[in-house]
Structure formats: structure tokens, C-alpha cells
């Protein structure tokens, strides 16, 4: 297989662009979350650093970078140092398969607005989202702390409860689009978004991704009222920052995936495709922040019960019904 140097250059540019944009967005998502939560609670939120507090993410970054990098006695050194990266890197890698705009034509080349158009993109997402939980599990285990260990145990229990229903809720999408390739899934929705055919699958997926990004009401692994900070209790400085930013990258990425699978990806009238995609991602991010400002935390057994006895059977029934419908329609 021969590669054109322009193609390689374009791919490198896309990787760099996605990396910078996602990291900046994640930093500003933290700021947006603090602002929106403050508004919900009738406060003003951060407004001291720069105009309207817009330099707050920068100030946070400087603070995290200059803090002491602390390691508890008896912690497993290598796992303790690696775990934050294991949580953050898979999150940003998932974005490689998400198409964020209509294909462009540059220098006579058709440029997919997507870092890599894998034919098993959906499976790659499922695999990487499971790998990200290893960061949580190993980080908590390597910390040599009871609270951190409890947090990571909860993280694992949560994983097996929601990951199954999340995977099952995506099966009807694949059945409708007849492809695992994310660009095909988006193109299949050029007429009608899949949320119209699959409202139940969308609801299950939405609940599952809230559990996947460890957000309230499913923030059991870090439950600050019960477990100090859960699996990242013992982390300080930029290692904590990596866990933190990984979580917000996860929100952006999973919002993008929800938009891709159910809301037609970059499809939409009047506005440019990239703007549509960004709008959809932001509305998911806002929904998560809004939910955090509203809901209480579920109990550990309630989440397991909900995942195994409600979401998974519903997703299975949904698959069967979708299959019947596709067969009857021919």
C-alpha cells in the first residue's frame, strides 16, 4: 500500500488539531460546569481570573502543574504513575473514529473530517471505553488506600453493570445502518435521525454514558460524600489533573458518540456540519452538568439492580423488536 505524503500530512494535521481542540474544550468544560452549577445554585461562579473568569482554566492548570507530586508509602509505584494516563489516553483515542464534519476537498484530495475511518469504529469505541476503566481500577488499587480501593471496586462493578446495556443499545443502530463504520452510521441518518426509530435505545445509551463518564447520579467510584474522592483520593498535582481532564474528555467524546449514533452526527439544516456537531456535543455536555446540579447519587446496589434487571432486558427486547421490524419491512 502506497501512501501519498499529502495524505499523511493531512492526517497528522487532523490529529494535532483534534488533540489541541479537545484538550482546550475539556479545560473550558470544567469552567462551564463550575459556572452552570453556580447559576443553578444562585451563585456567580469563578469570575476573578480574567474577564468573566475566562482565564480560570489556565490558572487551574498552573496550580495543578506547580503542586507537589505525592505518592503514598506502600503504593505500587509504576501502576500509580501509569493509571492517570490509562484513564485519559483511551478517552481521547476514542475521538479518532468520530466523524465531526462533512468530507472536504483539499489539494484535490477528499479529506474525511475524522482522524481514522475504521470499519470497526463502533467496536473500537467499546474496547477503548472498557480500557479506560482499567485506569480507575488500577489507580485505586495502586494507591494503597482503603477509600481509593473502594472507589475502584465500585468502578469495576459499575462497569459490568452499564457496559453490557450500552453495547446492547448500540446493536439496533448497527442493524439500521448495516455497518460498524461510524461514517456509514452518520450517512444512514441523512434522512431521518435514529432517535426517531430508536427512542428506547437512545434513552438506554444516554443513561449508560452518564455511568460511563462517572457523572451524578452514577458517580459512585468517586462519591465525594462517602469515599473522600474515590479512586483518585491519593493523587495530587497534574496526575489528579489527568484523571480530572480525562473525565471531561470522556464527556465530550461520549456526547459526540451519542450525537453520531442517534442525532445524525454532523447532519443538520442551514448551519455548517462542524457547527452542528459541536452544538450537539455541547447540548449533551450541558445535559450532564444540569443533571449533576439536580440529581442525588444512586446507591451501589440500586445501580447494579437498575443495570442488570431493567436496562439490559429492555435493550434485549429492543433488539428483538427492531429485528422483527426490519424483517417485516423487508
Amino acid at each position, binding site marked *: 500500500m502506497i501512501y501519498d505524503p499529502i495524505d499523511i500530512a493531512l492526517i497528522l494535521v487532523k490529529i494535532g488539531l483534534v488533540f489541541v481542540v479537545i484538550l482546550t474544550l475539556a479545560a473550558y468544560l470544567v469552567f462551564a460546569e463550575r459556572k452552570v452549577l453556580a*447559576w*443553578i445554585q444562585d*451563585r456567580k461562579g469563578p469570575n476573578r481570573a480574567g474577564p468573566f473568569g475566562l482565564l480560570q482554566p489556565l490558572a487551574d492548570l498552573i496550580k495543578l502543574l506547580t503542586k507537589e507530586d505525592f505518592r503514598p508509602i506502600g503504593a505500587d509505584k509504576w501502576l500509580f504513575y501509569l493509571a492517570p494516563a490509562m484513564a485519559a489516553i483511551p478517552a481521547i483515542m476514542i475521538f479518532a473514529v468520530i466523524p465531526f464534519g462533512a468530507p472536504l476537498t483539499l489539494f484535490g484530495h477528499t479529506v474525511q473530517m475524522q482522524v481514522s475511518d475504521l470499519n470497526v469504529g463502533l467496536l473500537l469505541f467499546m474496547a477503548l471505553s472498557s480500557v479506560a476503566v482499567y485506569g480507575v481500577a488500577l489507580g485505586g488499587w495502586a494507591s494503597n488506600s482503603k477509600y481509593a480501593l473502594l472507589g475502584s471496586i465500585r468502578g469495576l462493578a459499575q462497569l459490568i453493570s452499564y457496559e453490557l446495556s450500552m453495547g446492547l443499545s448500540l446493536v439496533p443502530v448497527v442493524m439500521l445502518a448495516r455497518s460498524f463504520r461510524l461514517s456509514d452510521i452518520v450517512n444512514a441518518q441523512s434522512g431521518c435521525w435514529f432517535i426517531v426509530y430508536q427512542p428506547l435505545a437512545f434513552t438506554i445509551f444516554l443513561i449508560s454514558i452518564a455511568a460511563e463518564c462517572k457523572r451524578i447520579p452514577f458517580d459512585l467510584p468517586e462519591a465525594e460524600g462517602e469515599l473522600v474522592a474515590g479512586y483518585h483520593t491519593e493523587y495530587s498535582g497534574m496526575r489528579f489533573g489527568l484523571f480530572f481532564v480525562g473525565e471531561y474528555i470522556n464527556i465530550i467524546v461520549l456526547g459526540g458518540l451519542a450525537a453520531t449514533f442517534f442525532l445524525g452526527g454532523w447532519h443538520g439544516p442551514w448551519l455548517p456540519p462542524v457547527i452542528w456537531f459541536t452544538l450537539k456535543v455541547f447540548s449533551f455536555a450541558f445535559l450532564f452538568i*444540569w443533571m449533576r446540579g*439536580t440529581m442525588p447519587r444512586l446507591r451501589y446496589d440500586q445501580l447494579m439492580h437498575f443495570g442488570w434487571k431493567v436496562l439490559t432486558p429492555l435493550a434485549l427486547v429492543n433488539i428483538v423488536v427492531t429485528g422483527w421490524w426490519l424483517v417485516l419491512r423487508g
Partner: protein
Amino acid sequence: MKILSDIAALLTGMWITWKHIFRRPVTIQYPEEKRTPYPRYRARIVLTRDPDGGERCVACQLCSASCPVDCITMQSAEGPDGRRYAEWFRINFARCIFCGLCAEACPTLAIQMTPDFEICTRDIMDLVYEKEDLLIDGCGKSPDYNFYRHAGIGVTQPRGSGAEEKPPVDVRGLLP
């Protein structure tokens, strides 16, 4: 259908938080905006003077005794006219909890609370206020009260000539 009412409850919560996003924040931006405390707000303590300009404090130690954190100390002394006063008077605001018990206990209304709460400093020793820092040239919250006019002891006027006071009783006249 319990599940429907549960979903309705969730949506009600979401609707309430949505409404609060657009409500005006209750925050007061402290160094720029300041709220005016109520007149009876309990903050910095002062020693007041009576309407004639004399010190009200008679160094009776009641404030010091009532103070739950023991932040008030003083040394009592007596003037040539028999009037008691504090030789020195010290309040350690680093310990004071602004409970107002000293002001409650004071029989001469000398020690009073003011609404001035901005007394923080860089050096903790600056929070130890001496008598000259505490004493003000005014009567505070009770402009007319003068303890010695009511006390019945002959310091500012002969015994029995104070306000609402009867002349001293001749004890021998009471004998049966």
C-alpha cells in the same frame, strides 16, 4: 404506575434547577460590594464614655468574667475622687468570638459591640487592642446613660441626690 410518577419527579427537579439558572445570584462581591450590617451587629468592641465625657468603665471585671474565651483583661485603679477606672484594658481580638456576653454583662454600658467587622491584619499581634485603641469619644448606643448619676455612691454628687434616688435613710429613725 409508579415509574411514571418517578419520571415526573425527576423532570420536576430538572425544571426547578432550570428555572434557577436564570435567577439573579445572591452573591455579594465582597471587596467591591459591601453590605451594611444591622446596627446591633456584633463585631469590633469599643469602650464608650458617658455624656459628660468621663470613662464609663469602672473596671469591675464582669466582662472579663463573662467572656467564654478569656480574651478581656484589665487592671482596676481608683481616682482621687473615688471614681474607679481601668488602668489598662486589653481585648485580644484574635481570641474574641464576638458573642456579646461582655456587652450584656457590663453594668455601666461601657463595653459595646459595633458593626465594624473589617479588622483583619497581617500581623496577629495587631489584633491585641489596648485601652487607647478601644476607647471612643462618644456614648455609643445609649447616649443619655451615666452610671454615677444612678449609682447612689458619692462620686459625682453627694449620696442621695442622684436621679430617681431617695435621700439616705436614717437607720436610727426606723427603730421601733
